């Protein structure tokens, strides 16, 4: 690809599911705007490019890089560092890169436990308890696979990040909006948001976009969604006793899940300035429990079988307890 003077664009996936790429493809014709205004230099899903080519690029020569996926192994980390080096603007794209997402739940466990579950499963035939070897001697030579890290980290726990774009995956209309913004900036019609800002999302939480009726809350019982005979299509799910992450989750998705009778599971992450997403949800639901008696409170809380999982479903690696610290150790104080 010869340099045609257009700003360079890159998109990369680390430990992700590919949903972010699909979401980008789903902006349909908008993708042509990207093609028209950018020189796409690196985007595994859409085109071939060579790691060596990226390596060869001058530092900061890529204007915009959308990085999705968490940092799960040696390889992910290398790419994160490389792309940081080569990019002027590095965007943590999607929940995995921003706060860890579902794969971040792995931070509940350690490597041995994960290997145990994967390589000793019921259908696994592994009498010699074989585990993956990063460097393994076969008769023909040495085979290498990248080292699996003890925990999943978010992009900003490995490199400096300029902007965050939450969502699992980010909704296509938000992606389109961000692309429009970037194009405006390129044409000098708009300013870039301050570094560290969250883009492609709202400033409030999901309730702000949720059409369900809300009242003063007073919870006497938590129920699980499949236990509900008929979910009231009008009423706030939390008021129906269904644990909904909406109140604590950043707006921008259009409250799609509550819209179809499913609870918000929190993929857009915490609201502006929130340090620990789980704590916000925890304190909110606990505060409106309708009891002052410890035993009764505990009984009501029985309705939440997996508090940590529910509160940190998408943000475990960014939570204060399960791995946020490494990020701080690089330059917190």
């Amino acid at each position, binding site marked *: 690809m010869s340099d045609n003077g257009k700003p360079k664009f890159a998109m990369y996936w680390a430990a992700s599911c590919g949903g972010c790429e699909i979401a980008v493809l789903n902006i349909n014709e908008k993708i042509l705007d990207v093609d028209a205004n950018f020189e796409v230099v690196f985007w595994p899903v859409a085109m071939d490019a060579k790691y060596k080519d990226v390596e060869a690029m001058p530092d900061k020569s890529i204007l915009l890089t959308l990085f999705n996926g968490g940092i799960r192994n040696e390889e992910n980390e290398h790419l994160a560092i490389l792309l940081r080096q080569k990019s002027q603007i590095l965007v943590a794209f999607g929940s995995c890169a921003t706060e860890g997402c579902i794969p971040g739940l792995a931070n509940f466990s350690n490597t041995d436990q994960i290997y145990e579950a994967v390589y000793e499963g019921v259908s696994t035939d592994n009498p010699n308890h074989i585990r993956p070897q990063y460097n393994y001697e076969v008769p023909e030579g040495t085979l290498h696979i990248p080292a699996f890290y003890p925990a999943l980290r978010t992009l900003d726990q490995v490199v400096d990040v300029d902007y965050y774009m939450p969502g699992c995956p980010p909704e296509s209309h938000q992606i389109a909006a961000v692309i429009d913004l970037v194009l405006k900036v390129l044409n000098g019609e708009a300013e870039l948001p301050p570094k560290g800002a969250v883009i492609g999302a709202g400033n409030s939480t999901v309730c702000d976009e949720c059409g369900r009726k809300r009242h003063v809350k007073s919870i006497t019982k938590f129920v699980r969604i499949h236990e509900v005979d008929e979910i009231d299509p009008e009423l706030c799910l939390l008021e129906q006793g269904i644990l909904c992450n909406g109140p604590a989750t950043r707006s921008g998705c259009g409250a799609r899940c509550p819209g179809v009778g499913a609870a918000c599971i929190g993929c857009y992450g915490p609201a502006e300035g929130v340090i620990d997403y789980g704590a916000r949800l925890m304190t909110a639901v606990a505060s409106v429990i309708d009891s002052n008696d410890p035993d009764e409170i505990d009984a009501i809380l029985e309705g939440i079988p*997996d508090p940590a999982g529910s509160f940190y479903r998408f943000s475990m690696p960014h939570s204060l307890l399960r791995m946020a610290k490494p990020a701080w150790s690089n330059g917190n104080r």
Partner: protein
Amino acid sequence: MTRITIDPITRLEGHGKIEIFLNEEGDVENTYFQIPELRGFERFCVGRPVEEMPLLTNRICGVCPEAHHMAAAKAGDAVYGVDPPSAAKKLRELLYMGFFFTDHTTHFYALGGPDFVMGPDAPVAERNILGVIHKVGMEIAGQVLQARKYGHTVVEMLGGRKVHPCTSIPGGVTKGLTEEEREKIEEMGEWAVEFGKFSLDLFGDIVLSNQAYVDLILGDIYTDRTHYIGLVDDDNKVNFYDGKVSVVDPDGKRLGKYAPDEYTDWIAEHVEPWTYLKFPYLKKVGWKGFVDGNDSGVYMATPLSRLNAADGMATPLAQAAYEKFYETLGGKPVHQRLAIHWARLIELLYSAERWMELVTDPEITSPNIHTVPTKVPTEGVGIVEAPRGTLTHHYWTDERGVLTKVNLVVGTTNNYAPITMSIKKAASSLINKGTVVTEPILNMVEMAFRAYDPCFGCATHSLPGQMPLEVTIRDAHGEVVDVLRQFC
């Protein structure tokens, strides 16, 4: 010994990596296909409430989240021993047809198709979706986008979101279908059926009418005599959403059918230390290494496998195409890997026809879409057909329905061994006595596994077929003598 390393794009991107070792004679000594990625869902889903699994396992793969969503939902039903209202099952299946339609379209037109449409030895730069468009005309491009859009629209209407749907729960779904929505989906369905027919015709015109391609398909390079599995309904017709898994041997003889909760009697997974991914095989036959034949437990689970394992298609047009398929290729079973593309198009048509059956079913708009589970949850297995193979979710829970153990055998994983074998076979037959490896040769090798439409979103995470190759040929001293690249 000379070592050829084939890395997708780079060796640092975890999209699967091929090592070809040549011996002193310059013949292929051995090949290794490594999957360098692991996320550990089996571990961290433990402790989660089972009703969340359709949402959590979605995130195993953003390419086929619907497959995991369905398998998890069915496993959830099984864990609670609850039978969802038939309207709920139909809504799930309708969503699933929308997904299959989109996915198969994407693969054929954007990823696998170009090999045929453009021809294997066409210049690299043309062998992609743009090339297809140039060859078959711009209006098709529009149709392809339309097809993807329609499929996604169905997923979004029923699942709440385009990617990672969220409506299935143990005992049914949270959202029903309004008459208004139904009409819209029916409208799109009619178009979908036409598109399905069109695609098969296109394949006929471009591939079947071209003897070179037919020879290529039937050629020995792409043939492995493995076992085949696939989900079938009570009449042994192909089914994506429900039924029993039919297992046939390389002679096409049905070894049996297993219900989801019997899968451990049939399937086992072999572990190698040089890769993160496991190698499933037929337990009853046993693991004999990367070899084919009746004695090797290696099996394949792809559109072709489904056709091989079934007695036919449940919809008229697809059934007709099914019959033509076997006539043309000389009867069941078909072992030629490249035929997977054709089989995929037959399934594309089936998904569209089934879509219409479901959306015109009077029950589809019924408000009765959920049965509250009453039994104490224990253990359950859910099986569906993912576009890339049979998908099995197996959960154990405590009495609260919180997971205590999870086992997953995901779509593409099924084909890990056969893909490895196909690569070795292609490489061995194309590289010998120090053949100079050329781009077309590399493409032939690549075609071997691209046919499987390997979605390592479930294992690694590259998109279907996105497996560009880079070959480094080193001499005995490891000095680089030549670097060749294969773009797509």
